C-alpha cells in the first residue's frame, strides 16, 4: 500500500517535472544566459549582447531546455564546443582551487588569527588597573569636572 503510494508520488513528480512549465523554463533560460559568455563580444554574457551569435546561442539553449536537458548537461555541451571560456562560472577544478578557496580562507584564517591574538593578549596583559592607576584615574576624573 505504502509502496504503491510512493510509486504513484514518484510518477506524479516525474510527470510534473517533465511537463514543461513555460514560465519556469524561461526563468531557467534567463539564468543560463547570464552564465554564458558571448564568445565574439567583449566580456558580455549572451543575456546582454545584441550580437547575432548571442541570439543563436540563446535560441540553442531554449531548444535544449525544451528538449528536456538539464542545466548541467547544457553547460557541459557548451563547454565541449567552446572550452571553459564560454562559461562565466569557473569550474571547481584543481587549477581553480585558489580562485574559489582563498577568499573564504582569508575570512576563516583571519578570524582564527584574531581569536588567537586576543587569547594571547589576555594571558599576557590584564585590563584591570593597578591600585596606583586607579588613584591616578580618580584624580583625572576629578580634574575633568
Amino acid at each position, binding site marked *: 500500500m505504502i509502496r504503491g503510494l510512493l510509486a504513484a508520488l514518484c510518477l506524479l513528480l516525474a510527470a510534473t517535472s517533465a511537463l514543461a512549465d513555460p514560465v519556469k523554463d524561461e526563468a531557467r533560460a534567463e539564468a543560463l544566459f547570464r*552564465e554564458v559568455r558571448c564568445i565574439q563580444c567583449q566580456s558580455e554574457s549572451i543575456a546582454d549582447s545584441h550580437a547575432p551569435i548571442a541570439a543563436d546561442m540563446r535560441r540553442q539553449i531554449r531548444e535544449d531546455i525544451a528538449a528536456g536537458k538539464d542545466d548541467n548537461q547544457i553547460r557541459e555541451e557548451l563547454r565541449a564546443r567552446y572550452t571553459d571560456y564560454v562559461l562565466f562560472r569557473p569550474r571547481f577544478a584543481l587549477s581553480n582551487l585558489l580562485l574559489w578557496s*582563498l577568499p573564504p580562507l582569508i575570512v576563516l584564517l583571519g578570524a582564527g588569527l584574531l581569536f588567537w591574538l586576543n587569547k594571547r593578549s589576555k594571558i599576557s596583559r590584564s585590563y584591570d588597573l593597578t591600585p596606583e592607576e586607579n588613584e591616578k584615574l580618580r584624580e583625572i576624573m576629578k580634574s575633568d569636572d
Partner: protein
Amino acid sequence: MIAEIGNFCLVLAFMLSVAQAGVVLAGWRIRGLERFSEGLSLAAALAIIGAFAMLITAFVQSDFSVLNVYQHSHTDKPLLYKITGSWGSHEGSMLLWCLILLVYGAFITLRGGGLSDGLKHKALGVQGLLGAAFTGFTLFSSNPLWRLAEDPNRIWALEKAPLQGLSLNPALQDPGLAFHPPMLYLGYVGFSVVFSFAVAALIEGRLDRAWARWIRPWVLIAWSFLTAGITLGAFWAYYELGWGGWWAWDPVENASFMPWLAATALLHSAIVMEKRDALKAWTVFLGLLAFTFSMLGAFLVRSGLLTSVHAFAVDPQRGILLLTILLVTAGAGFALFALRAPELKPGGLFAPISREAALVANNLLLSAALCSVFLGTLYPILMQAVFNKTMSVGEPYYLAVFGPIMIAAFALIPISALMAWKRADLKAIVQRLGIAFGVASLAAAVGLLLYRGATWWAEAQYLAGLLVGFWLIFGSLKLLWDRAEGKLRRLKGLPLATWGMLLAHIGLGVFVLGAVVETHAKLGATQVMAVGDSLTAGRYQMHFNETFAEMGSNYDAQGGVFSITEQGRAVCDARPQWRYYSASRSSQSEVWLCFTPLSDLYVVMAQPQTLADGRAAWSVRFFYNPWVRLIFFGPLLMAIGGLVSLADRRLRLGVPVKGKKPKSSTEKVEA
C-alpha cells in the same frame, strides 16, 4: 604653437617634479633645501595646468596637425565633445591623471599648515617622485601633444596636416565623458596623497593618532570622488551601451572597484587608529594598498591584456612601462613597510566585543572581498599566460564568493555603529536594535509577497537581500533616533561626521535594495521587430508604431516610435534611435528611458536588417528595470555622506588636535 607651448609646460612639469623629489632627497645632506619642495609643488601644478589647457585648446581649435586631435576629433563634433575628447584617449587621459596628481601635490602644500615640516616635506618628496614617474611616462611614451610628424611609430607621419580628423568613438560622445573620468581620476589619484603620507610616516618612523587624522580628509575626498565616479560610470554604461545592465564584473569595472574596496577598509581602520591608536601597521598597509590598486587599474586598462568595452587599445610596450612604475613605487613602499612595521608599537587594547573589534571584522571581510575581486580579475590572465588555457570569471563566481562576504559585512554595520569603544555590551545593543530588525524583517516579508521567484533559491536570495538592505536603513535610523533621544531639535547638534556615516550607511542600504529588486524582478524581451509588430514582457506590451529620421550634427539617426502599455493602460511612448556616425563609420544605439522616480522602462533598437518580405526591421530590446534608480541614488548618497563627514570641523586640516599639539614642530624649533 599651441602644441609646442603645451609640450614645454609638460617638460616643465616633469622637471619641476624631478626637482621636487630631488630637493627633498638633497635635504638629507644640506639642511633646509627640502623647504623648496613646497614652492616646486605649486609651480609643477601650474605647469601641468598649462599643458592641459593647451591640449584642450588644440581640441577646440581642431588642430589636426596634433596626432591625438587628428585621431580623436572632428570638426563636426559638438563643442562639449571636442573638449571632453581631450581625455577620451589613452594619451589624453594620462595627461588628466598627471594634472590631478600634481594638483593634489600642490594641495599638500596649500592645506598642510598644521603638518610637521618633516612629514610634509617627505610626503612632498614622494609625491614629486610619483609626479615625475607619471609625467615622464606621459611625456616620453604617451604624449597627447605630439605633432603628426613626431609620432614615434611613424604610422601617422603624414607630410601635411589632414583637413579632417578621425573623430571620437561614438560611445564616448556623451555628457558622461565630461564627468565620469575626471571624477574617477580624482578618486584614483587622490590615494597618491595617502600613499605619500604613508611612505613619509614610515621613513620618519612615527605613526600616531595625528597621522591618522591628517590622512582622513584625503581618504574621504578620494573615496567620495571614486564612489561618485564609479556610480556615474555604471549609469553611463547603463544608458549608453544598450544592454540594460549597470555592472558586468568586467575586468575594467573591477579595476576601479578594487581601490574602492581597499579605500573603504582604510576609511574604517583609520578611524580606529585616530580614536584608539590601534591598528597602526594595518592602516598604513591599506594606505599603500589603495594607490597600488589605483595604479594596477591604470595599468590593466592600458596593458592590452584585457578584453573589455572600457579598455584602451594600447601597444604592450607602454603597458610594460606602466607596470614598471607600478612595481617600483609599490615595491618600494611595501619594502619600506616590511622594514618599519615591526617597530610600530601596538596601541590601545580592546575587548572582542567592541567598536574596534567590529571594525577589524569589517576590514577582514572587506579584504576577503577585495581578494575575490582581485583573483577573479587576474586569474584568467594568469591562466592564459602560464598554462595557455582560456577561461572566464563572471557574475556567477562573484555572486557565490563575493556576495556572501559582503552580506556578512553589511549585516554587521548597524551593530558595530552602536558599539562603544574598548568594550561594548552586545546584549544591550541587540535590545536596542530589536525594533529595527523587526521592521526590516516585516518590510522584507512584504517585499517577498510581491515577488514570485523561479526557484526557492532565487526567493531566498531575494529575501536575504531585502532584509540586509532594510536592516541597513532602519538600523541607521535607529542610531539617529537614539542619538537625538527622540527630539528633533537635538539632531542639529549631531556632529557632521555622524551625519556623514549615517548617510553613507543608508545609501548603501538603498543601493542594496535597488540591486536586489532590479536583479530579481527585472522583465525583459528581445525581438526582431518591424513597424506594426508587438512585443510582450510580463504585464507590459510594446507596439512599434512608426519610424522617423533625424539628423544630428555629426550623425544620421533612424528612430522608432514605440507605444508601451501596461495591461492595456498607456504608459509612455519610447523613441530610441540607431545612429550612424559617418566620420568614424560606426553605429551606436541610443537608448530611450521612460523615466519614473524609481523604475525605468528601457527600449533600445539595434542591428538594422531587412526581413524576407522586404520590410526594414531592428533587433529591439525592452526592459522593465524596477527600482533601478536606487542603484545610482544609493552610492551618490554614500559619496555625499563622505563629503558631509569631510565638512566636520574636527577634521579640517590645520586644526590642531585638542590638547595634543604635535610635538615635532617644537622639536624642530629647539633643534
